[in-house]
């Protein structure tokens, strides 16, 4: 295993400089944030470079942080290098008003449905996606149900007092 997180970090810093931020390591996986207009360039760089070769898109999803103004939605990519067995997490933040993010479908076929799922639940608009429509929910749906403004239980109900059961409106982070 010659490909270390430090080396990836160094290569990314050389190529993209200050644009790569929030580089951290948790549970052995390196994580970083790229600006949303550079997401494809960074992925292409990680894909093409002889020493990096992150050619497998393991997972693609989004997270909603309602309290982070201007960067409410985080699109999370998990990339994998088969040869060196290294996993990498890339995040791209976007505001909830303008959710346009470049699609990764040209690089990875697997991104097709994963981006549709992410669109379906979070409303991330993947620019350039060949078929961006809802996948698991019904087509008529008008909202994006995994966003935090849709709590699972009606938080206004007054007929039961369940403060004791930890079910109060928990928004977090």
């Amino acid at each position, binding site marked *: 295993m010659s490909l270390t997180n430090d080396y990836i970090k160094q290569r990314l810093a050389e190529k993209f400089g200050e644009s790569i931020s929030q580089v951290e390591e948790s549970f052995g996986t390196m994580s970083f944030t790229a600006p949303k207009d550079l997401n494809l360039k960074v992925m292409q760089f990680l894909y093409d470079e002889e020493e990096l070769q992150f050619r497998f898109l393991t997972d693609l999803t989004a997270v909603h942080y309602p309290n982070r103004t201007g960067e409410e939605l985080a699109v999370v990519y998990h990339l994998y290098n088969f040869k060196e067995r290294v996993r990498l997490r890339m995040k791209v933040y976007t505001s909830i008003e303008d959710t346009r993010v470049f699609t990764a479908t040209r690089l*990875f076929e697997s991104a097709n449905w994963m981006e549709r799922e992410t669109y379906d639940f979070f409303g991330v608009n993947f620019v350039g996606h060949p078929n961006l429509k809802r996948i698991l929910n019904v087509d008529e749906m008008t909202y994006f149900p995994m966003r935090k403004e849709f709590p699972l239980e009606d938080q206004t109900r007054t007929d039961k007092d369940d403060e004791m059961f930890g079910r109060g409106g*928990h928004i977090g982070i």
Partner: protein
Amino acid sequence: MSEQHITLPEGSIERQTQTLNLGPTHPATHGVFQNILEIDGERIVSSESTVGYIHRAFEKIAERRPYYQITPLTDRLNYCSSPINNMGWHMTVEKLLGIQTPKRVDYLRIIIMELARITDHLICNGVVGVDSGAFTGFLYLMKYRELVYEIYEEICGSRLTTNIGRVGGFERNFTPAAFEKIERFLKEYPVALKEFETMMNRNRIFMERTQGVGPISAERAMNYGFTGPNLRAAGVDYDVRVAQPYCSYEDFEFTIPVGTTGDCYDRFLVRNAEMWESLSIIRQAMDKVKELPSDVYHADVPAYYLPEKSAVYTKMEALIYHFKIIMGESDILPGELYNPVEGANGELGFYLISDGGRSPYRLHFRRPCFIYYQAYGELIKGAMLSDAVICMSSLNLIAGELDA
């Protein structure tokens, strides 16, 4: 595909191809999902897949549930091998909390996970047989799935959706009867599997039905996000158990079977070979378990491991911890991790973000089925209708895992 069977006159309102719905409820789909096929005679010109018929919003529900109540949700992903999903979830939480499980717990888990892998593969391969006209193998192997379900029943009380184990270990120790049942399975199943292989592997009819059907190259398979037996059938030796060992898999000797062409026949052979490997792993685990103290079945983490019910009624500490865990007052550390396990269908990943609350801030399941099913249209393009059916069953599509 290039030859045209019907030539329509100019301005005709008829179409050269016809549309056929394979699913949502069709015996050949083995689950609820739809494929709209455009066919020219018996040949498939194009297809479109629709999924989501049994979407149950698990990821949303998980954001409101305490950690131990998420295990039953994972049951219902790939319900042919729910113990793997359960264990995967427990291990994700343990990794977040930094819990080190004793070796015996790891080995017992491996026994259960490998049994689940065998049941999943035997159903898949049995169904490939059914869809190619050989019902005998499926019916014959079904008996052995029953034996495995009896083992689950002995350990956790349920059979299909098992909810087996807890964060930290198992809810109770394996009884001598459970070990007896595992021994019985290890003795009887290889005989049946050998017979099944004798019947199918070199069967002329079966080979002609499956060879060259739904092939995929290694490069395309990786690009499509294939994992598990389907990727290995295309010739890539990627297995999470080896690439990123978890649950003490590094203590075991086993090989990863790979195919070459990625067609239905190779997928069938890879799954069969994996069953033999799983049997060998279970054998090794049984031998290792015998050498360890027999009363260890969970890690010593009272703050997270649900205590035994009789202890709750009689002991002060057990009652306190029981109350704290049930009421969600045990602090879960904030953190973010992606933890994969090798599910029966491929890499089953749990992407968990905890903000320290009683339930996850965000939980995402990487469902292998959902990701590789995208390739189905490409696999069956230009194939016969009957090939589409057999290709679907050899991919092992489980509706529960597609939709989550």
